[in-house]
């Protein structure tokens, strides 16, 4: 598998670390909504199909990437810097999937 790092270009899977489901929503740091915290830490969509996820180019520029990858075919349809991705998975308090 190759992931096209926006900085380094296409690189081998061996250079990346999977940082998990990008659909999770981290509550506000001060939130006392226990269910929201639990859901964030433990519950996963586990999508069969296009899946939003976070990878780190740990064996390269070390940037975290927001990747959309199909879990049935492994085809990657988009890669962006996680910090710039419009749909930052965390810090969103409300809303469902997009």
């Amino acid at each position: 598998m190759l992931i096209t790092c926006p900085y380094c270009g296409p690189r081998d899977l061996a250079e990346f670390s999977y940082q998990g489901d990008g659909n999770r929503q981290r509550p506000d740091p001060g939130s006392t909504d226990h269910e929201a915290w639990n859901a964030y830490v433990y519950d996963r969509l586990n999508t069969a199909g296009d899946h939003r996820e976070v990878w780190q180019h740990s064996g390269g520029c070390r940037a975290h990437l927001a990747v959309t990858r199909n879990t049935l075919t492994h085809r990657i349809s988009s890669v962006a810097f996680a910090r710039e991705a419009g749909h930052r998975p965390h810090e969103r308090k409300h809303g469902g999937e997009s």
Partner: protein
Amino acid sequence: MSARRAASGGLIDRDKTVRFTFDGRPYVGFAGDTLASALLANGVTLFGRSFKYHRPRGLLSAGIDEPNALVTVLKGDVREPNIPATLLEIHDGLAVVSQNRFPSLAFDVGAASQLAGKLISAGFYYKTFMGPAIGPLRGTRFWMFCEHFIRRSAGLGRAGFAKDPARYERMNAFCDVLVVGSGPAGLMAAKAAAERGGRVILAELDQRFGGSANWSDETIDGMPASSWADRMIDELSERGNVRLLNRATVWGYYDGNTLAALERVTDHKSVGGVGEPRHRHWVIRAGAVVLATGALERPLVFPGNDRPGVMLASAAERFANEFGVLPGEKSVLFTNNDGAYRAAAALAKAGSVIAAIVDVRAQISPAAKGLAAEAGAELLAGHAIAGTEGGRAVSAVKVQPFDATNGKPFGDTRTIQADSLLVSGGWSPAIHLASQAGGKPQWSAELQAFLLPDATQNWIGAGAVTGRFSTSEALAQGHAAGIAATGGPEMPVSLPDVAAHGLDLRPAPVLEVRGEGKAFVDFQHDVTADDVRLAHREGFVSVEHLKRYTTLGMATDQGKTSNIPGLAIMAEAQGVAIEDVGTTRFRPPFAPVSIGALAAERFGDVKPERLTPMHDWHVEHGATMYAAGLWFRPMIYGEPGETIEQAYVREARAVRSAVGIVDVSTLGKIAVQGPDAATFLDRVYTNMFSTLPVGKARYGLMLREDGIAFDDGTTWRLDENEFLMTTTTANAGKVMQHLEYFLDVVWPDLKVHLTSVTDEWAGAAVAGPKSRDVLAACVTGTAVDNAALPFMGIVRGEIAGAPVMICRLSFSGEMAFEVYCGAGHGTHVWNALMQAGKPLGMVPYGLEALGTLRIEKGHVTGAEIDGRTTARDLHLDWMLSKKKPFIGSMMMDREGLAAPERISLVGLVSLDNRPLNGGAHIVEELDELSPHDSIGHVTATCYSPALGRYIGLALVKGGKARHGTRAFISDPLRKRFGPVEIVSHHFYDPEGSRMHG
């Protein structure tokens, strides 16, 4: 020369003879021979024994699909089992032995298993050897007794225990177009792509480029096909943008158009070059792939079809044309398609007598008839082979008229004398890589074969792999594929002229002749047509059940010749079309790959070593080094005659009474820089860092998101906007990644940079009541007294001219200082410290003493912060700030993490004055015979010089409530049981007066 070697012809080098041995007997062949062709030329017909019945077997094929002729290659003590003789190139000194036979290939007692015949049909293991449900052989005992013998009779070649002296390597390659297969289609594709400027890799699994051009008798552009291929290769090799790889099997098609190939670099040489790997593991990232992998011929299933001398027609043609070897003096061909006729003509031309061509089809094309006549062969249309005769080789075949409607021969049997029987059951495109790439193969009733799936990655098929079998189509498809792979429109070009026979390789839908006697489908695994039908009878009808129940297609050839005949028999038994039985997905590797090659340069060097700047000093000064992850750290600096315990006790005593020095360079160190650094640390640590003054350090604790303790360490504020964080050695990488994740993904607005500076700094901890004196004696540029350097204070200065940063902090509980300097100055500064410490009795100490000192102080490490414990379990709840949220703060108080029955940290004192064992459990009541009801376990132990007792740390249910009570350690594994007192984990100087003093 032997009778089997044709007087002329073939691509071997008849001027170079090669000497080799097979089962200890010397043979001579020619350069360019495979073991198969060389032995065949020497009249050898018996190559191996089958897996289950130990039946004698000869060559079935001439290539990578060979199921029978597997041998073991010897290099001294080193053994390489299961190598197909058809791929093994001979060289001087090659030593090869046959396998799966005892005592010899010709006489194998294992063949007695055939007597069991139908008793050991498919799946028989499942129905017996269970053993009784009661009595001494109950449970698994009877089966394991039987298994012992089954295991010894199973297996093919024997592997050795000796280390392979060869080296292996990995090679990363990038190209615009990877062409797999160098037959006419592959050559055309490579040329077209190269001419358009693409970076091209052309991979060929055989020794010779050219594929079918090497064994066809066609002409291309007026010259023999093999000469045309040579010319193409010459042209390609002159181009700077083409890499030619022969002896390179592309075996894996992974995601992202990443393909893996195995290049056999030195197997064909008597001696490899300096530094040359035996095998090279290519990992190729290709923009596009042209699959020109050809097709594999299938045998037919009929009684006696496994007798040595029964060979694929195309293999015979290949032996004759490529190697100048005849499979027999007198041959019969048996076919369901036109292809075998070409083989008949080739063999006749090379000097073999073709006794007859037996064709299950009643109607034969004029082209085929012409070739039969050319070969001087009697043509028996509408006939089939009903059996073979002979001992270890075919001597005659039985022919009968064939009824295509029921698959059975009938009528008069005729016996034809022949020493070889050449069969063709049609062709299966070699679609393996395309299937690996994803996508479902498509069944073609016309070809009785699975065709390429729709492409799910960027590949294009060309040549026989597409199910188009003529050379002229291969040339055209190859050219088009080369163009398409480089992108852009096709350009008109005149393709080479081909003079071919115009044969039709579409087979009649007949793959089996039913009759009396064993008819083999999978030769290596001895799966017969009856086994397939038995599987059907027992309900194992889906293709995967068929495979698994009968082991059809599971042998080293992975069903290359057996899958389609097996499916055909199952389909017939079920009364359905072959496609409805299904096909299995092809999985990597396409052909077996040496495990060493995939380990590549890591073979013999599995992990790198991480060394501290003072590593050589430690080794020179007698340290016993200890592997901690990838790091090496001194365990003890033993003196002659000392036990480990004596050494660490001496070292620890020195620290408590005078001073010691320990290398702490392995601690993870992370530069946390930027205007929001303090804010960031407040969020990741449970305690506050924004309040830490510049020039001071603070002990910090991190939790995971789920509220479990993660890591601890001190973090130093070097400047308003700059911190130096330290982590435990083991967690350095994980902590770095954890922090980077939060900074990048969760809090991208924070202006903070994280950089690993673990390797920038050498660290030495100087500990003990005289530690300050040591520093005072060697540090310049700063004072180190209590005013200048209070507890947790940081100063900068120099030692022996090297800049240092000193923080007064303590892990041992003594007055102690961590001295950091540039790593390149590590040994220099260490030596200066040693020099300064010498008059004060300073000793270097290792991990054991470090552990002893920390146990005495009750400090936790990874043994206690084990990913399951909470801050509360470790009595670190004082560090949990209530003034701010931090990672894990909302999760750490959940019901399960606050439960009273959790284990928590305590100290243990051995009451029988014997050592405690790490990993022992704690019980309230001792039961040495059947231990039970563990209430916790020992995490760390030592002899405490400070207390004069054997002590330990433990995680115990109830924790503090048990202080002052008695319990027992229970270590049945090491038979150590004994009384302990549970005490506070703060064994030594709980007020901390020594380190603050």
